């Protein structure tokens, strides 16, 4: 097993609204290992983006991070990102330096009034201290690497002159400009058409191998998970309900929510001509979190009197082995397995 690069533990992030505080992320534990890909999956609104933003301290008012630690192991000495001062150099180096980040809407993530070159060169210069000429040369080189044709011309284009896919490539180039050890990709392909999606995924995979970086990939597409992931974290309503290696997860999902998610994905051959099961009900408003296990109102295996009353324990299937916290489930169904090696 490789070294942990980023460890999130007990992260809580909330938003103040008129109706009270929304606990968007409510105690999340995650680990990204160096050079590996962690996929975070979950329905819309379950707190994936907020988790990702919390890592780089990008949560803005009315939101704030309430508790937890985010430990970065990529530097000389590990440190807690959340305890840094906003002006701390280490935070500045993380943002865009050690950690690159790309977003769901590539077009909107670039300022339309400045050329992509200007925005790319700016980032290169912030993190490498190159002079203008050298930074421009590096920018052209990066644009070439991410597969933009005629990079020396395109560098002077404005974002609105490029397609969404091309913009996402530019964003990737920007994220790569200081050779990060972690790339956080927050649904980078959701806004793109299918062929472009596949190309961007390929690109990310190739670049990951070339640059030997870890990737934290956020998606709600299980197909993408199967293709990319080394490890998977399943989120529901601000919590990680199941963590597993990708093969284990698909072969043997434990949490009822994971099972339901997997069942709702069509499998070629198997599902021809039959209705796919869907998860009944909708994701509850995080303001009105159900008591007990927050999944119980939609859960097929819920136990009345238990699931709606007590919060489910976190069961660690690898406890006692050298791989603690690799395979965990938050569900009473496995409570008796607590502490028992899988």
């Amino acid at each position, binding site marked *: 097993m490789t070294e942990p690069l980023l460890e999130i533990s007990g992260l809580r992030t909330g938003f103040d*609204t*008129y*109706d*009270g505080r929304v606990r968007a992320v409510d105690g999340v534990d995650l680990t990204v290992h160096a050079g590996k890909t962690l996929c975070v999956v979950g329905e819309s*609104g379950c707190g994936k983006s907020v988790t990702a933003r919390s890592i780089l301290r990008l949560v803005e008012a009315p939101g704030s991070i309430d508790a937890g630690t985010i430990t970065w192991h990529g530097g000389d000495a590990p440190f807690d990102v959340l305890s840094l001062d906003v002006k701390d150099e280490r935070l500045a180096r993380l943002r865009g330096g050690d950690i690159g980040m790309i977003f769901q809407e590539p077009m909107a993530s670039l300022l339309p009034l400045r050329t992509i070159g200007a925005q790319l060169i700016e980032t290169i210069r912030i993190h490498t201290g190159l002079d203008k000429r050298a930074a421009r040369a590096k920018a052209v080189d990066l644009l070439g690497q991410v597969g933009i044709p005629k990079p020396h011309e395109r560098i002077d284009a404005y974002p609105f002159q490029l397609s969404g896919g091309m913009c996402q490539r530019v964003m990737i180039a920007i994220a790569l400009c200081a050779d990060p050890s972690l790339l956080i990709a927050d649904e980078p392909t959701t806004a793109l058409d299918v062929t472009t999606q596949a190309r961007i995924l390929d690109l990310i995979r190739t670049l990951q191998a070339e640059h030997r970086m870890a990737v934290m990939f956020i998606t709600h597409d299980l197909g993408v998970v199967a293709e990319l992931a080394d490890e998977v974290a399943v989120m529901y309503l601000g919590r990680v309900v199941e963590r597993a290696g990708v093969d284990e997860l698909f072969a043997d999902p434990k949490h009822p929510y994971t099972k339901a998610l997997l069942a709702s994905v069509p499998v070629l051959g198997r599902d021809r001509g039959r209705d796919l099961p869907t998860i009944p009900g909708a994701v509850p*408003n*995080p*303001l*009105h*979190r*159900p*008591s007990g296990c927050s999944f119980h109102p939609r859960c097929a295996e819920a136990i009345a009197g238990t699931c709606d009353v007590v919060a489910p324990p976190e069961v660690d299937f690898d406890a006692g082995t050298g791989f603690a916290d690799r395979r965990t489930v938050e569900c009473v169904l496995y409570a008796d397995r607590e502490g028992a090696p899988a």
Partner: protein
Amino acid sequence: MDVKAGPSKTTEGIEETARPATASQSRLVWWAFKKHRLALVSAWILAGMMLVIVLCEFVAPFGSRHRDAEYTTAPPQVLKLWSDSGFGLHVDGYTSEQDPRSLRITYEANPEDRVDVGFFVKGEEYELFGFIPWDRHLIGPTDPDDPMYLWGTTTDGQDLLSQVVYATRVSASVGIIGVLLAFILGIVLGAISGYFGGWADNAIQRVIELIMSVPAIPLWLGFAAALPADMNPVTRYFIITTILALVAWTGLAREVRGRFLSLRREEFVTSARLDGSSHGRIMFRHMLPSFSSHIIAALSLSIPGMILAETALSWLGMGLRPPAVSWGVQLQDASKWSVLSGAPWLLIPGLCVVLVVLAFNFVGDGLRDAADPYKH
């Protein structure tokens, strides 16, 4: 995205069922609006203003033509409950003194001269709503001939309070009627533009752009000035209102167009079209109601401009003219600095302008925010 449904603080079922997530759009907007405290207070102020407009003959202590030549530019009086002659709501009468050289009369409160004041007193006769003859006034001197000028008097010796009440009816209604006129134009053209798109949209947009780039205010000054001076006040009122509306409709038309554009491809519109509903029905029965809060907000935000324009126009002598009273007309009284320096209460109509304009702005802002929960 999650719609923030209802202010249900508890997670218990009772609240949830009482305020289901399927609450109508207007209920949702109303809940959000109520949280905007300033807007709520403003809404009450406007409600009060509406009452004053409707009941103005009753609210005003004196009739619109009441003049007391004995008390010109007399200062405001203070309502008192207790004097040497006993308990009871009253004000002090005036003693006057004329400066022999400037001939200027100054008034002092005279505690000896007690003017009893009552609610629902008999006073000048009037016709409520234009047809119910009555003679009661909300507040007034028990003897209608006594001087009771709570906000002082004008240079003509008219009761300022009464005049402000009458002016409120005129000035506020210019704003409201003007905006409604502008709204009709704006909504018809904006709807056509946004719903049909294509060349109709193009043509209307170009015209709007052209009108918007014409500096409006000097032009309406010119139009207003070209009206004959001896025009009947009612005609003048309507013409001025129309002039203001002709300038204001473009902004509303753009707002409406934008809304129609964004809705044009929504499913419910497509399905209504497939059902064979007529264009007019789709536009005004299906689409318009779905953004009525935005429209009301836009209307509320356009009224201040109208009121301010009418006030400035009338104050300049280009808008309404005496005997019509509006806040602007009243403020003419205060424009001579020799008068103003001795009679600051003449600026009270200006306070009314500020108050009402602020109230419309806050209500409009509150509504807009409530209608657009995602903006925040």
